[in-house]
């Protein structure tokens, strides 16, 4: 089987159509399993009580937000270097989900912070760099949306995504050092020192569910983008 044949939008479109239900079902199964473990199996935290259970949404969302940016920049870079149309479409399709995950991580973090630290927001290194990551996603999407010519929009946003990737570690460490310089230990961010195994299991299941969800939704979005861009081509006209 020639794997590369799926790099054209025409052949990828039906493949994505077949893959979406698989990933959607997997996301559902992992999600149900993760929520069950999270709500009924994992023990109540002795310090934070029940409120810690938001970790099962918060941590997977934070992981996905960072990972999705890397994947997005990867596809954008491939699209820029090899001039492959589908890679650029994939990068564009991933961005909204990545931004959503970043927003979810920030939002659930605020909801978690209120009962445990007593404040919605602290200028902690991780929170601050997550916020800047959200700005990077928004910048990427705005640039792509502002340029009318599709090819140019793809390339310009790809350059921005790559510049962002180089900067993300710099931003992260600068915020981290800034934080240690400015802020005393007024708010301790250390979690429960050892995590119960069922908690870890629930978190991993939820992380898998988020992965599957991201893949399924991005594939749906990339199908929509393919449709939109290739609407004049013969194979789209022949679709039932």
């Amino acid at each position, binding site marked *: 089987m020639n794997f590369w044949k799926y790099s054209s939008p025409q052949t990828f479109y039906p493949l994505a159509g077949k893959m979406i239900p698989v990933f959607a079902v997997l996301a559902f199964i992992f999600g149900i399993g993760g929520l069950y473990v999270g709500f009924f199996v994992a023990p109540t935290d002795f310090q934070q009580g029940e409120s810690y259970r938001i970790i099962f949404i918060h941590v997977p969302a934070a992981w996905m937000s960072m990972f999705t940016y890397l994947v997005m920049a990867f596809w954008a870079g491939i699209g*820029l270097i090899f001039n492959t149309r589908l890679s650029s479409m994939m990068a564009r399709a991933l961005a909204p989900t990545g931004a959503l995950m970043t927003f979810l991580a920030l939002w659930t973090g605020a909801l978690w912070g209120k009962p445990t630290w007593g404040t919605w927001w602290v200028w902690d290194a991780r929170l601050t760099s997550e916020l*800047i990551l959200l*700005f*990077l996603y*928004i*910048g990427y999407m*705005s*640039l792509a949306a*502002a*340029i009318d*010519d599709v*090819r*140019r929009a793809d*390339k*310009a946003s790809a*350059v*921005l995504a*790559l*510049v*962002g990737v*180089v*900067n993300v570690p*710099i*931003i992260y460490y*600068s*915020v981290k*050092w*800034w934080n240690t*310089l400015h802020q005393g230990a007024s708010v301790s961010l250390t979690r429960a020192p050892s995590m119960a195994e069922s908690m870890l299991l629930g978190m991993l299941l939820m992380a898998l569910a988020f992965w599957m969800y991201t893949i399924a939704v991005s594939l749906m979005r990339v199908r929509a983008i393919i449709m939109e861009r290739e609407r004049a081509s013969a194979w789209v006209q022949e679709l039932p």
Partner: protein
Amino acid sequence: MSGGVWQAASAVTARDMLLATRRRADVLTTVFFFAIVVSLFPLGVGAEPAILRSIGPGVVWVAALLASLLALGRLFAGDFEDGTLEQLVLSGESLAMLVLAKVAAHWVATGLPLVLLSPLLGLQFGLPGEALWVLTCSVAIGTPVLSLLGAIGAALTLGVRGAGALTALLVLPLYVPVLIFGAGAVSAAAEGMQAGGHLSLLGAMLFAAVALAPWAIAAAVRIGLE
């Protein structure tokens, strides 16, 4: 061969410097913007000397950030409209070197005045002498990084509607490290601590930006001219 690149780059710098001296109003706009933004803060937060001294480094730095952002609009836009940028791309010389020359001229025209003005504005906030010196140094090392990073955003938004606001959105998150270490150096000096570490990190950023940013700017200019 290498002489050709240097000759072309220095010609670009000389031309842009000449243009800047002929359009002094553009340069002065940036400088006055910087001064006005800084002067607004005491009016907003009150004239308590202790508060002013503690927010001073951050205020001057944020204002420098915004002023250098404001100046970015003129970096490529004029040359893009009259076709000069296209000629630079077609000249056959390394585009990365030519845009670096342009950014250098742009910094001398818009960044250097900020450096010269910053100790005066720091004085308004009651910063001590040592901190004023560190402020000048940190702005001198930091603003070229801002110009280089900003040039990427300016090149990416060439000919795009609403380019100014979009450039701000693209570039400001990337400015964060410069702001942190620039303002951090001044705060450290104001509190009587060593500022050398912060300044070294700013210097490292400057070298990294000089080495890497021109390639991204050149790629962005090429995309913009397609």
